[in-house]
């Protein structure tokens, strides 16, 4: 588009007054704002001594966990929906025949690469049985890359750690009832 195209609508800047054109009064106005913030209250949290106050753990997206059902088994049914939804491709599931009667499959291995994870929460959204959830634990560290591959046991242990502070987000729902007969007929 040429600069003199009539279709261009030029938006003019607001005109400055005399004090604005002289700049100096505005500079002092700005300096007072700066000085006010200089002595004002600080918002930094001194982390190791002082834990940040996470307002709503339900919204916060930290480390993953794998929920257990009432009998202490892993809730996951190895449907791969989370792995499919994951934009970072960080979930790796190996499914196996379920030893329990109420579902077909269960995850034999369930590994999340926390270094690749972008903590978007899509897995949590995708999970049909609310097995995978994001907790409000944010300070995850590791000394090696391998340490940051969280496997099923680790994810379940995260659940054990956090289940009291943060009950499963859909604790009230009953475990998925699968009408096996219909399926087989």
């Amino acid at each position, binding site marked *: 588009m040429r600069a003199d195209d009539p279709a261009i609508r030029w938006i003019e800047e607001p005109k400055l007054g005399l004090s604005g054109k002289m700049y100096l009064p505005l500079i002092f106005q700005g300096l007072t704002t*700066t000085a006010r913030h200089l002595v004002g209250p600080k918002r930094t949290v001194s982390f190791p001594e002082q834990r940040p106050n996470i307002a709503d753990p339900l919204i916060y997206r930290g480390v993953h966990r794998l929920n257990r059902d009432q009998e202490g088994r892993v809730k996951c049914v190895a449907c791969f929906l989370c792995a499919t939804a994951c934009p970072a491709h960080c979930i790796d599931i190996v499914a196996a025949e379920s030893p329990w009667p109420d579902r077909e499959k269960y995850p034999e291995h369930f590994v999340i690469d926390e270094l690749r994870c972008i903590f978007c929460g899509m897995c949590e959204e995708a999970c049909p049985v609310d097995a995978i959830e994001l907790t409000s634990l944010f300070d995850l560290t590791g000394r090696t890359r391998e340490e940051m591959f969280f496997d099923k046991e680790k994810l379940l242990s995260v659940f054990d750690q956090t289940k009291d502070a943060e009950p499963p987000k859909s604790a009230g729902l009953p475990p998925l009832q699968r009408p096996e007969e219909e399926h087989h007929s």
Partner: protein
Amino acid sequence: MLELAAIALVKVVILSFGLLTAAAYLVLLERRVAAWVQDRRGPNRVGIPLTSIRLFGLGQPLADGLKFIFKEEFTPSHVDRWMYTLAPISILATALAVFAVIPFGDVLTLGGERTIELVVAPGFDAGAIYVFALSSLAVYGVILGGWASNNKYSLLGGLRSSAQLIAYELPLSLGLLGVVVVTGTLRLDEVIRTQANEGIWFAFAQPLGLIVFVIASFAEAARLPFDLPEAEQELVGGYHTEYSGIRLLMYLVAEFMHMITASFLIVILFLGGWHFWGLTDAAAWGIEGEAVPLWLGVVRIVVLMAKVFVVILFFMLTRWTWPRFRFDQLMNLAWKVMLPLGIANVVMMAVVAEFEVPLTDRLGRGGVIGLTWVGTLLTLIVAALLVPLHSDNRRRSIEPDLFGTS
């Protein structure tokens, strides 16, 4: 002769160590101030090494310095090696050499009679021009660093920066010229003495000069409203894009040195140097004669340093107050606003100096100063009305313009 050399050597050693340390701690202060202004706390963790004592982060400069020094001294393969090494050295050397003529106190009286002037080169009669000579040499470090990096962004940054430094040298020297016209000397310690004897700082006697000088020295030190040379956010780093390790440290320290120099100059030329009413006057303490006792000399050093510190704090606060100029605005400000203001200041001061006696007889000292203030205000208003810093440089037509102005 030998004694003179020894004294000068001691001064040089004290000054260079003091300046380098001050630069290191000012970096910390700058980071803390930046954090406070942004409602953060800033680096407050590093204290005494190997202990858990934190000391408000006072160990941070040590950690930073060690990090810079022990970093790999990496030379990219495409650079011009000699110039690449020479450029940061030259800029740091000139930044340090400026302090040869800048007084950092008045005199120290040792052992009753021997007085030591607190300038490295006390007899140098052209001190103010020396400062300008060295600050014009600083352009070399910038432009050579940009060129030697063999990188188009560095070169553009270097050109941009040297154009800025050259442009703002004029208003800087015009701001200084007002003081020189009134005091009739180029020696910085004499300028302080004049202000101390009269008891009126030049900030009050020539406010226009102060404004011009402060703004120009911000630009010369490449501090924030004018930090086009670096402009990390918008314009890739500038002339030190390709630098790392200790050479980058040299550049950064030199930049801080420029800020310290500018603060010293502002304080010495306009804020009375070591003078403070009632605190540093010998008469106020009932001391007879010319001699300055040792403790008064120390008080004067402290007053000078305190003023410099306040000005540096002002530099740091301005950094977080005012957004960066665009390059055309920068140049417009230099040539269309600062230069006429500087000339107006020189003319005004020449008039005051020429007709000082009749004017003072007619109006009194306060009247002359009031006249200066009125003149300053009028000049500023005229400048604002005639040459606004037009900020709109959008191109409205396709006609080629003759001189590249929009």
